[in-house]
Structures are given as structure tokens and as C-alpha cells.
């Protein structure tokens, strides 16, 4: 939902970042307002996953320039946990398994950390049980998964559902979902996408990072950004995704080549 007067939640300006000595992001700018759904599309290696990790504060990525303002504050100086408490959420492409840590306990600690960030009271175990059971329905997840260790032995689809369950509990203002559709069969995709649609509202925003159009068949973006070589090459509406689907990414290469010849004229 595009409302030009909606408050800006996330403002990325000329962001550059590297991993080890390899520059990955080479000047990304993106403004996200409340109520909007953005999709960043691009080939593997275009930098789109890096963008999500940098936003969440992964220690392996070093920001070398530019700025990110979140709700008006400098996001990049915050520890990852503080970003999460402030309402920034990263849905992982490959959620890790954490043996020995109970999923329920993990969800409760995370939910309470976020609540503390909102100045809300901590939920005790009973109140949290009620909440988690209600939110399980968003992703049609079996409560049995609460009793297991975090993601341990979960299938690819179960891990993604667990991600969306966390999103449902943490009620983020900006949710960055990194390849949430990868590894999902069509039923699981529908459930996960249904969860994301359910959670999207006028006060929050979603940034979908994806390789394929198929996720965008079930979640309609307001903006589509095409990323290549660490930059956003083009921004358009949902029809841009369809164009990509039809024409493939080859035209992106041509545009990129043109860009590299005359960098100053584009962007």
C-alpha cells in the first residue's frame, strides 16, 4: 500500500559494504515507508542477501560507506540485538539449528526482548503459551515444534515456518525476508506467504529478497527493485517482476555493462 505521506521507516543511502576484502554493496539507496511491500530481485551474487545481513548487523560484513536510518535513528551503530528489539526482523534464508536450546524458551526470550524494546511488560510462561498457540495458526504449525530444539531436525519448510512464527511473535516494523521462498514446495509457499500477508499492515513494512517471481505471485509488492553487482539498477512496480520473469536477467547484464561504461549518468 503506497501512501506518499506515510512515515519513512527505513532509509538506506549510498550504502557500501564488504565481506573480508571483497566489496559487495557498491552504493545502495532505498526508502521504505510504512505500509509498503518491497521486493529486491537479482541473481545469485548480486548482493541482495548481503543487504539483508548488513541491515541485521551480521559481524562478518563491514560497512564502508553510506548510511541507514531506521525510524530516524542511525541503525548501523546498533548491536544486532538492539536492532531486533527496535523492530527490525531478518527472516533467514538458512535458519541455523541450535541443539539443546528449546524452541519454546527461545521464542519466549526473543518475544520478551522485543516487548522490552517496545516498553511492554514481560510475558510470563503462561501468558506466552497462550500467545504462541494463537500465533502458531498464522503458519499452521504443529505445537510439537515448540518442544523441540530450535530448528533442530526441522525440514526446510518447517524452518521457514518457524521464521514466520518468530515474525508473528516479534511484530516487527520492518521485516526483511531473505529468500523465504527457497526450498519450499507449493503448499508450504502458500502457507508462508499467507503468514507474511497476514502480518503486513499499514504500520509496518516488508522487504522481500527473492530470486524468483513465484513468491510475488502470492505476495504483491508495491515496489520491485532489480539488483546487480551491488547496486539497485532499476526500480518499478510489480510489473517489473513480470518483465524479469519473461525476459530473464540477461538484459540486466546489458544494462550493467552500460552502467559500467558511464557510471555517472545512471542512478
Amino acid at each position, binding site marked *: 500500500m503506497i501512501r506518499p505521506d506515510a512515515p519513512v521507516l527505513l532509509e538506506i543511502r549510498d550504502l557500501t559494504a564488504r565481506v573480508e576484502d571483497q566489496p559487495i554493496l557498491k552504493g545502495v539507496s532505498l526508502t521504505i515507508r510504512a505500509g509498503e511491500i518491497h521486493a529486491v530481485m537479482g541473481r545469485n551474487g548480486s548482493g541482495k542477501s548481503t543487504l539483508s545481513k548488513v541491515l*541485521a*548487523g*551480521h*559481524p*562478518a*560484513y*563491514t560497512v564502508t560507506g553510506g548510511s541507514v536510518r531506521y525510524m530516524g535513528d542511525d541503525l548501523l*551503530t*546498533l*548491536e*544486532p*540485538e538492539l*536492532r*531486533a*528489539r527496535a523492530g527490525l*526482523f*531478518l527472516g*533467514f534464508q538458512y*535458519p*541455523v539449528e*541450535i*541443539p*539443546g*536450546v*528449546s524452541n519454546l*524458551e*527461545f521464542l519466549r*526470550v*526473543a518475544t520478551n*526482548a*522485543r516487548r522490552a*524494546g517496545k516498553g511492554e511488560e514481560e510475558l510470563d510462561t503462561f501468558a506466552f503459551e497462550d500467545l504462541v498457540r494463537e500465533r502458531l495458526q498464522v503458519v499452521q504449525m504443529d505445537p510439537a515444534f515448540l518442544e523441540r*530444539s530450535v530448528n533442530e531436525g526441522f525440514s526446510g519448510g518447517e524452518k521457514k515456518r518457524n521464521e514466520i512464527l*518468530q515474525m508473528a511473535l*516479534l511484530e516487527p516494523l520492518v521485516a526483511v525476508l531473505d529468500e523465504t521462498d527457497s526450498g519450499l514446495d507449493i503448499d508450504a509457499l502458500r502457507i508462508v506467504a499467507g503468514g507474511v500477508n497476514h502480518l503486513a499492515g499499514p504500520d509496518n513494512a516488508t522487504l522481500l529478497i527473492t530470486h524468483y517471481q513465484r513468491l510475488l505471485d502470492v505476495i504483491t509488492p508495491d515496489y520491485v527493485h532489480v539488483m546487480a553487482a551491488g547496486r539497485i539498477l532499476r526500480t518499478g512496480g510489480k510489473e517489473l517482476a513480470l518483465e524479469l520473469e519473461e525476459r530473464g536477467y540477461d538484459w540486466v547484464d546489458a544494462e550493467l555493462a552500460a552502467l559500467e561504461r558511464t557510471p555517472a549518468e545512471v542512478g
Partner: protein
Amino acid sequence: MASSATVGDLVSQPYKYGFVTDIETEKIAKGLSEDVVRLISAKKQEPAFLLDFRLRSYRQWLQMEEPDWASLGHPPIDYQEIIYYAAPKQQEKKASLDEVDPKLLETFEKLGIPLSEQKRLSNVAVDAVFDSVSIATTYREKLAEHGVIFCSISEAVKDHADLIEKYLGTVVPGNDNYFAALNSAVFSDGSFVFIPKGVECPMELSTYFRINSGDTGQFERTLIVAEEGASVSYLEGCTAPMFDTNQLHAAVVELVALDDASIKYSTVQNWYAGDENGKGGIYNFVTKRGQCRGDRSHISWTQVETGSAITWKYPSCVLQGADSVGEFYSVALTNNRQQADTGTKMIHVGPRTRSTIVSKGISAGHSSNSYRGLVQLGPKAVGARNYSQCDSMLIGDQAAANTYPYIRSQQPEARIEHEASTCRISADQLFYLQSRGIAFEEAVSMMVSGFCRDVFNQLPMEFAAEADKLLALKLEGSVG
């Protein structure tokens, strides 16, 4: 990035118990000889049988060699450079706590072990040992009403000589091994617990060991006897000041469980571990053994080992009585340059004896952590069973973990199961937890407690939370 600054801050987390109490101490001269053994015995006004035991042990020790089979390395120990007896200067053990040097009471209070009437832990009786002597034991009268004896070994030698003569050295003989022989020759103090027939000890018993003097060895001796149908839960805690020289701690613990008796022995060990370069710290060379002498008796060891520069320790069970049960639950954590070679021995002698071993080793920094365990089933141990589970967790990429399980069975039909696993706390796991609003240190602690849960569940309730915190503190800053 952001979290690496936190790591730096946390690495320097100081050892909280490193202070030295300034108190006048009576020490004997450095070095070990037959005369020193006699002197210790004389100072404690011991009966002849005990002096004989000491001298026999000392002579055997002279013939023995320091063991070198463990995965440990340290410069040779000069046994003539150690002081074998140090005691805070005060006459006679005080009848009432009011007469104990307030400095000592203050020391224990600082360690979180208040002894005074008003502040003492409820439902835990404490024997406080400072250097070589026990300075106070709380709740003695209340325990005496139930016939339970809980006092220092020195007092027991005077007041209950018959029991000491009957049981001392019967589980760990004077010549059992090099360090046990040394202890048997020079042991200074420790705790004695006696639970008479049919009595369930009404409260937790606990001994708190504090090494204060810099050049003193600590050689305490603990003996716990549970008669037929008796039961007791006992907890041992330890700390020491920070010195840049190494100190030797060679204790012996003997447990005896008669028919249907049950002894639960828990240790939360937090000796000074040396600095991050491995300078200083305690050498913890301890012999702990329990004997399930009676049928259906039960001995359970739970240990949380976090301190010491070097740990060499194998709390064991000799399962002699039919249907007796031995258990060993251990968390051993090493960080920086610490070394630990620890585990257990389950010696199945009687029929249908059962043992369970759950060992969790956590290695961080440049440390080395080995599990070494023996499960032995003798010719009469028909229908005996063992289950062992040994898990290692590596933190960072400089630490080492080893597992040495030994199985000797003379029972072809016996059921012996062994499971082992190794895992590593990865930066990605930590980031995952952080990205859900969980602070770095809490994330580490969540993962470590998850890993240790099976063992912590065995600790007395009062101490389980303590152990959790202790591990978190010891590990802070070791990941990243």
C-alpha cells in the same frame, strides 16, 4: 564488527574470588619428610593408628612415580617447595561462631557463604575449611538430633576415632595412587559425614574449601558414610586467591554406602585457573571414589568443574553390592590455557549393577579438555548395565577436546552403550539469536546451559542456578 568490542571487554572479566585474606597464619617450614608427617600428626594430636596410616602412606609414596599418562602437561612439581600445613592462628576450634576471627567470617561472607547464625543459608549445613583447617560447621546441633555427624575430619579423629579407624582408607587405600598416597601422608583437614541407619539427612550438607596462603598445598580428606537405608546429599565448593605461582591441591574423597543407602555428592569447583597466558592457578589432582558396599545402594557424583589450571580427577564408583547403582554427571569447562583430564570409573563387581555416565566437556580459548572413563564389568557382574554419553562443545577454533572411553568386560551378555558427540558454537548461531533480540552473552549462556542441562538437573536446586551463572561468567568473551 559491533560485537567484537564486547568480546574484548568480556575477555578481561576478572576472577571474582581472587582476593587474599590478611590473617596471621601458623605455617610449618617448607618441604616433606617423615618428620613433617609426624609433626602434622602431632599438631593434630592424633591417635597412633592414624600416624601409622600416614607413615605407611608416606613410605609408599616415596616408592611411587608421578603419573604421566594423562593428556596434561606441566613443569615438574618440587614437593620440597610446598608448605604442608598452614592454619589461621587461633587456639582450639571455637565452640561458638561468635569466637571465630571475624576476618574469617568476613572472608566466607565475601565468597557468598555466610556462616553467622542470622545469615547462614537455610537448609544447608556448611563446613568451612580455610587453608588446612575447618573453622566452623553450621547446624551441628540440629543434625545431631537426627544422629547425623557432620564435622571436620580433625574433630572426628578426636570424637569418633572408632568410625575413622573403621572406614578411613578403606575405599581409597593409602597407596592407591601417587597423589592419594601423598594426601594420606599429609592430609590436614576436610569433612566427615556419618548418617546412621535408616536416617534421611534432614538438610543439604556442604563443605566450602578456601585456599588462602600462597605457597601452601591443600590436602583435604573427606569421608562420608551412609549406613543401611540412610541417605544424604552433599555439596563441595572451592575457590582460591590469584597467585602467579601454581598451587597443589591433592584431595581424597571416600564414600561408603551400605545396604539401601544413597549418597549424592555434588561439586561446584571454581579454583583460580591461572591468567589467560596460563600463569598461576591450582593444580587439582584429586582422588574421589565411592563404594556401593551394600546391596541396592546408590552413589551419584555430579561435578561442575570450571576452575583449576590443571584438573586430574576421576570420581568413581565401585559397585560391589548386588543391584547397586553408580552415576556420574559432569560438566567440565576449560578456557584460556586450562587443561582438564577428567572422567570416571565404574567398576561393576556385583550382579545387576547399573551405571550411568553423562559427561559434557566445554573447551574454549587455547584449552584442552579430555574425558577419560573406564567401565569395567567383573566376572560376578552378571546382568550389569552401563550407559555412557560423552558430549564435547568447542568454542572458537583453538581449543581441543578428546574422549578416551575404556571398556573392560568379562560379561559377554552385558549391555554397555556409549554415545559421543562433538559440537561447536558457531558465529552464525550466535548471530541468529542476537538477531532475535537476545544479547550476545545471554545467547552464549543459553547455548551452554542447553548443552549442560542433563547435568545441571542433577544438582541440588540451590546450586543449579549458581552453576549456570558460573559457566556464563567463565565463558564470557570466549566466543567471537
